[in-house]
């Protein structure tokens, strides 16, 4: 059911993208040809890209190609858009996964710690650090990390990209980008986890657990944390949009040849087939990630799974 609805959303996005691109002012073929051209060349190019056909027919052709995984050819490089995006996808996905590997443990862990030490100096320190964290753009975090850890102390390489391999070389290159993308997200998650946990501390089942003699620590980990995670997971779903956008920024900063770099080039060059492909791939990453979050949600909150109405929320 959820898979079907995510698939349907993607198809709707695809259709919207197609028609929006046709409404872009200016003739794309004139754009590519420049100011001096032969009429025959103009007609040949229009026919080559199927732009002389009626709009609906263009859409049907594009759509049926899309269903077969064919996104057309780049106007800029003449290469297949789907092959190029497919080749670049692993780097972007890895960046997002590594950033989550930074953001989730750090954010949830420090959130629990701050709530546990509520009102104490540690709590204030975490709150101040996270306020700074949510106010720093990814590219400035990345620039500062680069200045400190690559240019000053030379712990990690500043830029450059190593294709995926289980090697220190590869992960050393990915470390700074992953931190730049992950740290601001960790700050958001931490603030949420802290707030959510403080709210849960006031619930009856927490008091019941303390009353039956469980220690505060046991109560925290046996009951409070799992329940406090539920709203946090919802927000992680919303955060994925920021992660995907942030990945494009971080790719540009650290010169990583991922999907984002491709999309940005395509936008600057007004390479419409590539822009369409880029938007679709980003939307797909985003929808799939949200699907995973939904499944996680089912696992965390049995009330949704069984359809029972919870009294707590």
């Amino acid at each position, binding site marked *: 059911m959820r898979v079907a609805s995510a698939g349907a*959303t993607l198809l709707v996005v695809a259709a919207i*993208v197609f028609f*929006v*691109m046709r*409404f*872009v*002012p200016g003739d794309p073929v004139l754009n590519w040809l420049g100011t001096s051209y032969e009429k025959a060349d103009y007609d040949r190019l229009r026919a080559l890209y199927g732009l002389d056909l009626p709009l609906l027919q263009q859409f049907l052709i594009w759509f049926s190609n899309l269903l077969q995984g064919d996104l057309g050819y780049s106007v800029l490089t003449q290469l297949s858009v789907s092959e190029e995006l497919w080749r670049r996808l692993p780097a972007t996905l890895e960046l997002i996964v590594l950033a989550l590997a930074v953001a989730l443990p750090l954010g949830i862990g420090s959130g629990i710690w701050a709530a546990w030490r509520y009102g104490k100096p540690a709590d204030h320190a975490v709150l101040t650090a996270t*306020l*700074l964290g*949510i*106010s*720093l*753009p*990814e*590219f*400035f975090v990345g*620039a*500062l990390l*680069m*200045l400190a850890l690559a*240019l000053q102390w030379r712990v990690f390489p500043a830029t450059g990209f190593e294709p995926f391999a289980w090697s220190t070389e590869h992960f050393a290159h990915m470390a700074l980008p992953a931190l730049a993308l992950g740290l601001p997200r960790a700050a958001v998650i931490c603030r*949420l986890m802290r*707030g959510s946990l403080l709210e849960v501390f006031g619930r009856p089942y927490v008091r019941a657990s303390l009353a039956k003699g469980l220690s505060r620590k046991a109560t925290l980990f046996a009951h409070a944390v799992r329940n406090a995670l539920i*709203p946090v997971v919802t*927000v992680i*779903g*919303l955060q*994925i*949009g*920021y992660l*995907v*956008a*942030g990945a*494009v*920024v971080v790719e*540009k*900063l650290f010169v990583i040849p991922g999907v984002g770099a491709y*999309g*940005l080039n395509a*936008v*600057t060059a*007004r390479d419409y087939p590539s*822009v369409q492909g880029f*938007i679709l791939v*980003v*939307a797909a990453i*985003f929808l799939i990630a*949200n699907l995973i979050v939904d499944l996680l949600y089912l696992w965390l909150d049995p009330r949704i799974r069984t359809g029972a109405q919870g009294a707590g929320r």
Partner: protein
Amino acid sequence: MSAAPRGRASTALRAWRSAKVRYSCLLILVLLLLTLGAGWIAPYAHDQIDAAAAFAAPGQQHLIGADALGRDVLSRTLHGGRMSLVVGLLATLLAVLLGVPLGALAGYVGGKVDWLISRIIDLLLPFPVILLAIVTKMLMGDGLLSVVVALSLVLTPFFARMSRAKALSVAQLPFIEAAQGSGLGAGRIMLMHVLPHCFQPVLIMATLSVAFAILAEASLSFLGLGLPPPAPSWGGDLQASMSAFQLAPWTVLAPGVAITLAVLAFNFLGDGLRDVFDVGERFL
């Protein structure tokens, strides 16, 4: 008839007692004066090129140094801030004007109207800013307006969702029934009795939205999706200076610190207002 004006005055007083609110308001005021008054305050024009001063270190001539073209970094940072703050405030204003009435309408009227508006909110809510920004840039060209429209489209559903929830709970209260009984039309009830209840949460969310919009505008300029150069912008200037980071770190640090200060000021204000109002909701 409405108690809102009296309530608002006392709320403002209550908010002012919070040190967080006072300090962040002061910082925002200073930033606004510095950036909007950049034309008078900045020592140089933002596009004044001086080859002899290329990468000049901070000193007498250039307080915080010069960039690759010898342009004064301080002047560019002040001028660039105008764009960031104007975009942030404008996008938020548009989102409030669009989102709050839409959400209140959905919550108060209910039925098919609610269903339709809610579906649109759900669809737009989590959409990555960058995709919308690319689409508006292609449709509307390079300009301030396309960035503002993209950001306000991203922010609108958040305001709509919140005012819908607020309107839903207010619609149950007895004074709404009394207003209906006294013969007031739906439009008047919404304007005079439902919308005032959204004031506090909208104010908090709007403050946080400005922070978000400034951050997003910086990222878009960084990616080259904002105003094209030589227009000064924090994100764009930082990006342009990255290649000379080691040689002239001030060219990167100045716009970076400026972005952080501006975003921090609005986040801090939002935090302070949330403490004061205690609306007990999570945002953004």
